[in-house]
Each structure stands twice: as C-alpha cells, then as structure tokens.
C-alpha cells in the first residue's frame, strides 16, 4: 500500500484519527479497493467507528488488489504522527503512508515546511476485518444538521456527563443528560431543538434513546472542522444510533449502543445483546488462532436485533453463558463480581450499561468504572455549589 495525502486533507486525516481515538485504543487499517478504511471499536464493543477515504481523497492511492491486507496498531502511536493538529495545516505539506510488509511496519512520512522531514515507522499486528453490520437506511428516524447545531447543544453538558437521552417527536428533539436515579441531586439539563433547525428532520416513530456522549463529541469535532453535515439515524431503544458524515471523497460512520428500555433491559441486553458474531463474514480460521480476543468478532447487527418479546437468548451469543438476572440487585452483584473477574469482551459492555444503574454510594465510587465515579463527583460538585 502506498498513499499520498496533500494539503488540507492531511488535517482531515489527522482529525479523523483523533476522533477515532475517542472510541478505542486500536486503529484498524484496511486498504480496500474502494478506499482506505480506518476503524476503531471500544473495549466493550458498544461503540464502533469507521472512516472510509475514497481513492480520490488521496493524490496517490496504490494498493495490491490481490492481497487482502489488514492490520491494527495502537491508536496513540498514530496520534503521535499527527500530534499538533492545530499547526498541521500550516506546517505539513504532504503525507506519505507506505506499508512495508517485509519489515512489518507502516511508515508515515510528513513533508513539513522548512524542509523538515518527519518519518514515523509504526509496527502493527495483523488483524481480521472489523466490520459492524448496520443498516441505517432502515431506521425510522433520520436527522441531518450542521455540526454547529449539535456542538452548541452538547456544549451545555459538562464533560462529566457520560450519557445523553435524545427524545424525538414529529416537531422536536429533546436532548438531556441521562440521570439514572431521578431523585438524585445531579443537575438536569435539557435542550429542545425545533425541527426547522435541522436540514432534514424525518420522524416515523417517537423514540427516546440514551447513548454515550464521548463518542458523539469525537465525531462532532471532526464534522465541525471539516464543515460536513452530520446525519443521525435513530431507532428504538436498544438499537444502536448511527451518526454519519459523508462527502464525495470520505464517509464516516459512528455506531453507538443505546440503553434499552427498563422493561426489557434485563431480558434483552443480557440475554440477546446487540452484538453477535458476524455470521455473514466469518473471520478466517488463521486469524482465530492469532488473536483470541478478536476471534470474538462481534458486530452490531441491527437486522437480527430481536424485538422486546424475544427474551430467550440465542445460544451463540457470548452473554448467553450467563444466566439472566431477574432483578436489579442481581445485576448489580454480577457487575461487581465481574470487575475483578474474567476479561471476556462483553464484560465492559455490560459495565457501560449497568455501571450507571449503580447508586452513587461511596462503596461503588471506589470501583474503577468511570460512570460511577462521575456520578459520585457530580453530586459532590452539587454540594459544593450549594
């Protein structure tokens, strides 16, 4: 693989990598015939993001079509290549990305002003394809807006707010911070956006979904810097929300898990999670051997997401091995046990979903689950502010 990025596109690439770093720790690189795909997934596999840069995005794009090459690397190390995004536009004239399969390294060469040449040789690991399966076109509700609208909305939520709830009606969208215990003293913030603030506002079903704000912020930073319209596809609670930006030479999709409704929270999320082994594209057996974590190739599959009635877990799912807890107390105990337990890929997925169920007691705030710590500190802040 050999590609060359010039001018302002270097910044676009850098911004994309930075927004992917909001998702996961690893960057999956896959040069495809239709462009260079950069992907990331978080450790709990509740958030997935993919950028596809079309060959036209590059001033040169050469790949060996006969080989399916894929690799992954620490996203931090790629970020160091584009450390100073702010000055990148002024300093970098050209960026070469070259793959040296013999030495197992991906080389980024930045041609900077004043004749400075920066070369970063990054080592990588082979990986299987990371693909989330989602069909955003089948979604009931579609919105499109200038990123500014959402940036101005999100700015009202402090960084400590982990999740937001988006509720839609025919005419309006409400965004508020998600507070698990309504009696808690945490500050509630709600914003209402009218449909005419959007470029496109199509609602077929009134839904209220809750998802993590961090990843949305990541994509917003990208959309704002590139000035691309942001589309938001949302469906019923439990189905992932899809955020996307599209342009003639690039496409970015962020797929984020949403919190299920209370009544089907336990039966559904634990029993039949959104994530299922990718049945359509099973990874090659060799890769199974190479990487056991990734052999649990879990994709978000909205097409097979069962309705609320489908409480029986499919036997193929990883979570099926666990019994379905019947009450809140059991869930809490389960997630606590798992903190020091095994490290199945679905472990943190559940902690994301159920970490916020925990009350902000001193006991739970000791646990290394970010949501809980934040909930506790939130209430402290409140006390101080009072």
């Amino acid at each position: 693989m050999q590609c060359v990025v010039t001018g302002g596109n270097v910044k676009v690439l850098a911004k994309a990598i930075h927004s992917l770093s909001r998702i996961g720790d690893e960057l999956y690189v896959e040069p495809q015939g239709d462009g260079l795909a950069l992907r990331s997934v978080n450790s709990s596999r509740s958030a997935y993001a993919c950028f596809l840069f079309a060959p036209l995005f590059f001033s040169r794009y050469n790949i060996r079509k006969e080989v399916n090459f894929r690799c992954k690397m620490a996203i931090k190390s790629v970020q160091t290549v584009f450390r100073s995004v702010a000055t990148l536009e002024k300093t970098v004239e050209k960026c070469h990305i070259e793959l040296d399969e013999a030495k197992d390294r991906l080389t980024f060469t930045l041609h900077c002003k004043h004749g400075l040449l920066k070369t970063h040789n990054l080592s990588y690991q082979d990986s299987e394809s990371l693909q989330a399966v989602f069909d955003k076109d089948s979604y009931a509700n579609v919105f499109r807006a200038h990123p500014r609208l959402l940036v101005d909305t999100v700015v009202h939520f402090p960084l400590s707010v982990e999740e937001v709830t988006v509720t839609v009606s025919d005419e309006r969208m409400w965004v508020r911070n998600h507070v698990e215990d309504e009696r808690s003293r945490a500050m509630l913030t709600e914003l209402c956006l009218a449909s005419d603030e959007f470029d496109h506002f199509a609602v077929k079903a009134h839904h209220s979904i809750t998802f993590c704000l961090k990843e949305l912020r990541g994509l917003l930073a990208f959309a704002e810097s590139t000035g691309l319209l942001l589309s938001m596809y949302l469906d019923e609670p439990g189905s992932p929300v899809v955020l996307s930006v599209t342009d003639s030479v690039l496409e970015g999709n962020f797929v984020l898990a949403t919190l299920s409704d209370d009544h089907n929270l336990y039966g559904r999320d634990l029993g039949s999670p959104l994530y299922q082994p990718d049945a359509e594209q099973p990874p090659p057996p060799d890769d199974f051997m190479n990487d056991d974590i990734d052999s649990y190739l879990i994709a978000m599959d909205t097409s097979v997401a069962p309705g609320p009635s489908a409480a029986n877990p499919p036997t193929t799912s990883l979570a099926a091995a666990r019994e379905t807890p019947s009450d809140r107390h059991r869930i809490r105990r389960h997630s606590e046990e798992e903190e020091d337990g095994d490290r199945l890929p679905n472990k943190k997925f559940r902690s994301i979903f159920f970490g916020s169920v925990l009350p902000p007691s001193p006991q739970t705030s000791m646990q290394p689950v970010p949501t809980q710590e934040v909930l506790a500190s939130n209430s402290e802040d409140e006390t101080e502010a009072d």
Partner: protein
Amino acid sequence: MPLSTQSQGEDEQYILVTSLDNARNLSNLLKAISFKDHAVFTTTPNGLKVTVEDCKCVQANAFIQADIFQEFTIKEDLITFQVNLTVLLDCLNIFGGSTSAGISTALRMCYKGYGYPLTLFLEEGGVVTVCKINTEEPEEPIDFDFCSSNVTNKVILQSESLKEAFSELDLTSEMLQITMSPSQPFIYHRCLFLLSTFGSSGSAHYDYSKDSDMMELFRCKETQTNRYKMSLLKPSTKALTLSCKVSVRTDSRGFLSLQYLVRNDDGQICFVEYFCCPDEEVEEDS
C-alpha cells in the same frame, strides 16, 4: 527606584549585591535549568553562572552577564555558593510571577559570604518581602572538557524548528539519537541532521534539511551518530522553549553541547548551555 530604602551601612557588609528591576529576567533563565534541586552559583565581576547537574552525565549552565543587572557589586574575584534552586525559584515568584505588562517584581540579591544565607529583597506594588535562603557547601561542577577546537559537527538552528520535534518526542524511547553527517546518505538520501527515537510503537525520525531557512549554520566534518538518554535531554526542552536560536555541537568523543540564545523581556541576550554525555557506542544497524 525600587528598593532604594536600603541603608548604605548594611550594604557594606555584603560581598555581593545585585539588583534587577525585573526578577523574571533571572527566574526565567533559572527555570530553564531547574531539573535538579541544587544549583551552584559562581559569581565573577563578569556576571553570574548557575550550574545544575544530574547523574554526572548532564550539566546545565545559565549565564547572566553583569550588565543585565541594574546593580552588580562584587568585592571578591570569585564567589561560589550553592542553594536550593527550587526554593530560590519559589522566592522569586513569591508575588505570583505575574506576566502582565507593567507589573514586575524588583529584586535585590545580597550575600555576606561563606556561611551566610543568600538574602533576597523582593518588591512589587510597594510590598517588600525578605527571603533568606541557607547556602550549602558548593560542589565542584564537572568539567566536561568540551573545547571548541574538538568540535566535529555543529549546527545552528532557529529554535522554532527544534521545538516541534522536542515537544513531540516519543518518551517511550529510552534514547534520543542524533546523527550529523556532511553529505553522504545514512538512512535517507539527504540525511544531514537527524533526530531519531526508538519507542514502543516504532521509530520516529526528524530530518532537518541543510537548505532549510531554519538552518543558520551547518558545519559537519564527519558522520557521527550518538545516543543520549532521553531522561537527561528532555529537561533541555525548557531552555529550548525560551530560546530563539540553538547551537547543537558534538565533539570527537560524542559529547553533546546545546547552547541556547535567550532574549529576555528587555531584549537583552543571555545564554543557557547544556552538556550531555553520550550513551554506549551505537552498533552500525539502521
């Protein structure tokens, strides 16, 4: 005149009296070398030299010429004492070290001699603070024996261009490798002045072109590749940030000298210098 209330009689007891209208002209330079607590002050009629060392491998010197000071009275040819640099910096910033224009702390620094504390009078907005810092037995600074006649390679750059590289240095790399070569290729076609790191995620190279307008001087006699401990060189970033030009020199033994030209708030020029020992010999692999 700030601090002019000092009685003349008291002044006569001191063997060293210096005063600065803007204490930041001293504190900024001291910050550039403050990677260890203890600093040796060597004062001669020419000015003040402050030396900090670490691990017997790296030495930093800040030079403040006598004419930087509004008053510089020295009664002996050579006065040497050692103080805790961190404490001294805290004292110099005792009024908060405000950087806003028009507000500056005036300083009067006095020393009575061996066994006496270093006395600082600091004044800002009519408030005077007196600080007495105990002096310590001065340690003999290492002589790196770095002679200009032994210099093999020398590069002078505008600091701007090195700042970027130093701020981005991969700190997972234990070493910073510096390659200087007259012309012939080493790894790349035009490798002349090259900074390299070898970290956990891979290697990074910063290759400075000889023809760059950031390169003010390029004088290399032979190809030299030396490695220096990152932990020893990283503190020099402070000096780099402050400076406008930097001279990078290596001698025949591979010792590194970094000289920084620093322009202070009043446009006067001071120098900060770092010496660093090379690490073990580099094997010839790329």
